[in-house]
């Protein structure tokens, strides 16, 4: 089966082609069946590969599949080739599995959209590019996937392009990502010039010999990769695009901007584990960027009132946790959190979509309340997702977040301190959403009256994802983590982790207890603030004054970027368009034309229309010629 990995790319590619060319003719029913079916087939291939891999001994599980030679230029040669190992199969299972559920949900959610086939063509295109990114066996092919998912993201954020805000959000995402992509391209060039190859296996074999620990080239390559990852995975300083990306349809937010695409940066760093191990300083940067982002985005999430925006900032924050993990060298813990996060965050987004569906597009949690009476399935699944996000004990987020915090503690205690504060904030805002939207009394009677539960095509994916959100954590139980062992041959994290666990089992249990207490305390505080003692949030806001204003305005990051990047660029662009182009370029072109015209108008006078004059001129000419010949 491992030799048939290309089927994973083939199915979504077929979906894209068929739906693009015949989508409108096939009709909604066929398209709504075909697109999820293609992703399901991909998922089936991934499952088959996973099962086969389980039957193989650990050292035979990595498999390379060369499809064809892509390009040869001098001694530069790149293949279209796939790498199927534990890491890529894990990612493929998450992407196609969650992707399939979201496709099914979309079939219901987008039902009344006039551009239904186009939506599914884009979604399938996204899956195609994401699997390319994951399965590529060299940096260049990965870059193709990396750019492809960026394109899909742009097209889907701006899917409702009639809305100027959506079109702008799409542009913003694309342009901000471009900065990161530029970093990845430079990193690829550094790797090529240093090692003469882009294929993962060769790069990782040569890097320790050629570069060694702390070499400037490996530092440059990894720092550029960090830049790339901050773009794609929405970290400081490039996180500003993700909250705006919520303008896209909700399934898109769930699939691309929560579960899969934004984790590409984490995946890339985990895949390049060998290089990051050679550059410990970069690892430190990764961890601190991650924890800073986690904290900043978490605090912003506290003050937002738009359900999807809370989830967006929460995503940024959770991605920050993954960065902490891969930054401190606990790559398996990062991938583990990536996986559990894919389940519970996709679930939360789809739950938000279901609420939106019920309330005719309303997303302001201040207008909701008591929705559990009207939307029981959405309510229970949303609670499961929020609890997993909050890190309530025994749910998936608890185990994965705790693994990260444990490694952060071992690495640097300040990382752990910021992390645990963020975990508290996370628990608080998760339950703030639940209490404000689903508990209490209905704040807007008219909206509440018309609320209705979503159709089954939407609730069944919710239930399946909720099961994932509850159970996914059990593959990574503390100190007997199955996922650590499974990923160990790829990430070399196993020995490190096993060692730590053996030495510090007591410590891990203590930290586990602290995390559990913090999560429960956050949830309880949310209960006090939004159910029991409703005046509290207002009093806290007022007493904090300046800080409240800062956080509610998202730390003025957008304003800052506007002032230092966007406005100067606009000014330069305006000057180039209005002054340089109109005066300089147009002046040169028009000046040339004017000079030619003037010369013509002068020469025209010779053509007087008097034939006698012409004849005289000819005569003088002839005489002059004769005279010249005679004298010479």
């Amino acid at each position, binding site marked *: 089966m491992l030799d048939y990995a290309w089927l994973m790319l083939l199915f979504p590619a077929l979906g894209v082609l068929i739906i693009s060319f015949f989508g409108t003719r096939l009709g909604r029913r066929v398209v709504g069946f075909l697109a999820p079916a293609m992703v399901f087939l991909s998922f089936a291939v991934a499952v088959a590969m996973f099962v086969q891999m389980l039957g193989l001994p650990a050292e035979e599980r990595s498999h390379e599949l060369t499809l064809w030679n892509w390009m040869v230029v001098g001694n530069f040669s790149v293949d279209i080739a796939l790498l199927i190992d534990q890491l890529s199969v894990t990612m493929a299972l998450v992407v196609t599995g969650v992707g399939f559920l979201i496709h099914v949900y979309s079939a219901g959610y987008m039902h009344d959209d006039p551009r239904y086939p186009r939506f599914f063509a884009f979604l399938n295109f996204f899956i195609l590019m994401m699997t390319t990114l994951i399965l590529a066996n060299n940096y260049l092919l990965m870059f193709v996937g990396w750019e492809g998912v960026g394109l899909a993201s742009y097209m889907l954020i701006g899917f409702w392009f009639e809305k100027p805000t959506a079109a702008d959000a799409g542009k913003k995402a694309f342009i901000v990502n471009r900065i990161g992509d530029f970093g990845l391209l430079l990193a690829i060039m550094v790797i090529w010039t240093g090692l003469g190859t882009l294929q993962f296996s060769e790069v990782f074999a040569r890097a320790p010999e050629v570069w060694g620990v702390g070499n400037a080239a490996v530092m440059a390559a990894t720092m550029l990769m960090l830049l790339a990852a901050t773009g794609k995975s929405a970290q400081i300083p490039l996180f500003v695009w993700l909250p705006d990306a919520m303008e896209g349809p909700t399934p898109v937010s769930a699939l691309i901007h929560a579960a899969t695409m934004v984790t590409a940066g984490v995946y890339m760093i985990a895949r390049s584990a060998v290089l990051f191990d050679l550059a410990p300083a970069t690892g430190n940067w990764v961890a601190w960027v991650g924890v800073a982002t986690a904290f900043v985005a978490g605090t912003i999430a506290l003050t937002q009132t738009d359900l999807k925006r809370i989830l967006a900032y929460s995503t940024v924050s959770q991605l920050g946790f993954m960065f902490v993990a891969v930054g401190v060298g606990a790559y398996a813990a990062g991938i583990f959190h990536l996986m559990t996060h894919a389940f519970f965050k996709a679930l939360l987004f789809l739950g938000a979509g279901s609420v939106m569906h019920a309330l005719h597009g309303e997303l302001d949690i201040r207008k909701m309340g008591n929705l559990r009476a009207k939307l029981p399935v959405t309510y229970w699944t949303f609670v499961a997702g929020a609890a997993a996000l909050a890190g309530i004990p025994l749910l998936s987020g608890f185990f994965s977040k705790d693994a990260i915090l444990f490694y952060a503690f071992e690495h640097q205690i300040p990382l752990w301190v910021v992390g645990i504060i963020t975990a508290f904030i996370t628990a608080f805002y998760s339950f703030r959403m639940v209490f404000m939207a689903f508990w209490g009394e209905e704040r807007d009677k008219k909206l509440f009256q018309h609320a209705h539960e979503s159709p089954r095509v939407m609730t069944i994916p919710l239930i399946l994802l909720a099961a994932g959100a509850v159970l996914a954590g059990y593959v990574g139980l503390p100190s007997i983590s199955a996922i650590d062992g499974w990923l160990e041959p790829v990430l070399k994290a196993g020995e490190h982790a096993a060692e730590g666990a053996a030495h510090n089992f007591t410590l891990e249990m203590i930290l586990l207890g602290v995390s559990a207490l913090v999560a429960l305390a956050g949830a309880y505080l949310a209960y006090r603030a939004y159910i029991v003692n409703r005046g509290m949030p207002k009093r806290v806001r007022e007493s904090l004054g300046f800080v409240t204003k800062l956080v509610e305005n998202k730390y003025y990051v957008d304003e800052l970027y506007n002032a230092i990047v966007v406005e100067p660029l606009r000014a330069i662009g305006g000057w180039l368009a209005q002054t340089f182009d109109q005066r300089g370029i147009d002046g040169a072109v028009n000046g040339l034309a004017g000079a030619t015209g003037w010369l013509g108008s002068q*020469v*025209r*006078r*010779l*053509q*007087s*229309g*008097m*034939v*006698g004059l012409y*004849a*005289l001129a000819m*005569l003088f000419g002839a005489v002059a010629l004769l005279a010249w010949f005679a004298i010479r």
Partner: protein
Amino acid sequence: MVPTSYFLVLSAVLFAIGALGVLVRRNVLIIFMSVEMMLNAVNLTFAALAHHFLQLHGQVFVLMVMVVAAAEVAIGLAIVMSVVRHKDTTNIEDMNLLKG
């Protein structure tokens, strides 16, 4: 025997009269006739010098010029005819459509 120089002087005079006619007259037909006179002045020079040097080349060239002149007259008169039909004039000053 008339000396060759007489012929050459005569043809120079004829050529000058023709050229002057072309330059000063306004009637297209007169100008045409003046051009013919210039051509024939040249023909006379050819014939005289052919006789003087006892060679046939000059005389052959006269025949050549006559053929060209005949063709030119055919075309030129046709143009004049069409201009007259169009503008009802033979005055060269009125034919200035291509004036710059």
